């Protein structure tokens, strides 16, 4: 049993970090923001953390806090122009954002090491740290969903005009969700940097962007379990079936098309809805005789 764990530790680490990205994606989408930005926030967080530690000698824990803050700041700033845009244009804008970050990372060689990236980062973040991270983010999201913030997000996402008619500030809550999304992804990026020995700009481009969105499309965008299940499946598949590892892009692509066409709510939410439907039809049959 221990052997299994030891062999698969790196995979578990990977899953946990991808879950962070998936949660970042989930939080933005939850509030109805059509963001594809997590990969960009992760890049910011990763480089901030790595540079602060490697170039300026800051302690790792402080560097990671800054990774998170950098993500929050970027999210808050970006939300201003984003708030005025409609769905697909938010997607375009955030896509462009991710590309800008990658381009800048390639260009600002003196700070980021350019295409070579930053190497020799001490891999001080281990599985226990990542498990703690996972637990914290999950609990935080559960709490967020339970109280006013989550309620506001849901209203805005499902029926924006209703949200406005109820006095909910769409701008405020979307900015909030984007800032939180940024923070979670920034931290994920920072943890990635201190878990693997190096970071390069290409890591944070299209493939990571796709991974984040595919995880929530696959797993689900409403239940907290959605991003967890999605991240788990997407990260494990290439490990379990080696040939699929080479075809990662192809598999992700086909998966995206199939899921969005035939199970658009994602695995977890579809399942929950099915359960709710069954429960209610049984209850409804009994309760329907009580019409006034």
């Amino acid at each position, binding site marked *: 049993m221990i052997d299994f764990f030891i062999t698969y530790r790196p995979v578990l680490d990977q899953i946990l970090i991808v879950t962070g990205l998936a949660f970042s994606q989930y939080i933005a989408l939850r509030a109805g923001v059509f963001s594809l930005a997590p990969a960009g926030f992760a890049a910011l967080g990763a480089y901030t953390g790595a540079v602060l530690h490697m170039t300026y000698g800051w302690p790792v824990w402080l560097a990671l806090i800054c990774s998170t803050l950098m993500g929050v700041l970027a999210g808050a700033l970006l939300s201003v122009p984003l708030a005025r845009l409609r769905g697909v244009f938010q997607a375009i804008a955030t896509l462009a954002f991710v590309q800008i970050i990658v381009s800048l990372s390639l260009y600002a060689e003196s700070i980021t090491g350019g295409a070579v990236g930053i190497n020799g980062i001490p891999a001080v973040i281990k599985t226990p740290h990542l498990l703690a991270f996972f637990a914290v983010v999950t609990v*935080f999201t559960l*709490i*967020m969903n*339970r*109280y*006013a*913030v989550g*309620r*506001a997000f*849901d*209203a805005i996402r*499902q*029926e924006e*005009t*209703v949200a*406005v*008619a*109820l*006095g*909910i*500030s*769409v701008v405020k809550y979307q900015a*909030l969700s984007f800032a939180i999304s940024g923070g979670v992804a920034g931290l994920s990026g920072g943890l990635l940097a201190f878990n693997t020995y190096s970071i390069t700009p290409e890591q944070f481009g299209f493939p990571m962007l796709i991974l984040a969105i595919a995880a929530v499309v696959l797993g689900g965008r*409403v239940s907290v379990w959605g991003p967890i299940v999605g991240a788990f499946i997407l990260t494990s598949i290439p490990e379990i079936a080696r040939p699929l590892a080479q075809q990662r892009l192809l598999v992700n692509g086909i998966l995206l098309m199939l899921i969005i066409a035939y199970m658009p709510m994602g695995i977890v939410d579809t399942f929950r*809805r099915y359960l*709710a*439907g069954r429960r*209610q*039809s049984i*209850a*409804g049959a009994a*309760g329907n005789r*009580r*019409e*006034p």
Partner: protein
Amino acid sequence: MTSLTLHDISKHFGGVAAVQNLSMRTEPGTITGLIGPNGAGKTTIVNLITGMLGVTGGRIEFEGRDITALTARDIARLGVARTFQNIRLLKEASVIENVVVGYHRHETSNTIANLFGLRSARAERADFYERARKLLALFEMSDYEHHTAAFLSYGHQRRVEMMRALATDPKLLLLDEPVAGMNDVEGEYLGKIFRRLADDGISVLLIEHNMRFVRSLCDHVYVVDSGRLIAEGSADYVINHPDVVQAYLGT
């Protein structure tokens, strides 16, 4: 004191005049009817009042305050609630969650408390759910508390929408065809609730097609056609008014 006053309201979309020189008002504790043939501009008027559309001309006052230029959100926060012609519930949420959303404008706990589940947020949530349950009981929907809104019958969905509007504790309630597609029993049931709300001091503006319903409930009725006011008065007076009859029947 009147609750809502429309002074000479106009709304133009490009060259089309959806509403022209309309003046009307509502009083607290009364049910005011707004009727007219399809396309007369009734929903547009509601959208203008709630701030979802901007007026092209004229002034809107609510409780003595000029709300013409306010945003929809600000107007909602002043105590104006509405229901929608096509039901807009949060389909994926449960019945009680749909109602609880309505308490938003009464929130006092701050964002940090709500993000971290601090005491003030927990207390507020418990309080809101308690109040929502009372509303559910009033509307005889207690058994459906955790049902997903999407799976409810049409009549039940309408009730949920009503409860949500009431959760905001409105001073002015705009009902856009609240009993459309319902049978008489359901309609009567809701009608009694509207009467009770008015008796409690709320100002109710009712947009409806169902004449019998309007007649049994409304204290005062305005009739619009093609964006203009063509008659006003008591329900009986208005229903027999020649202009009104002509508007509904064509030529």
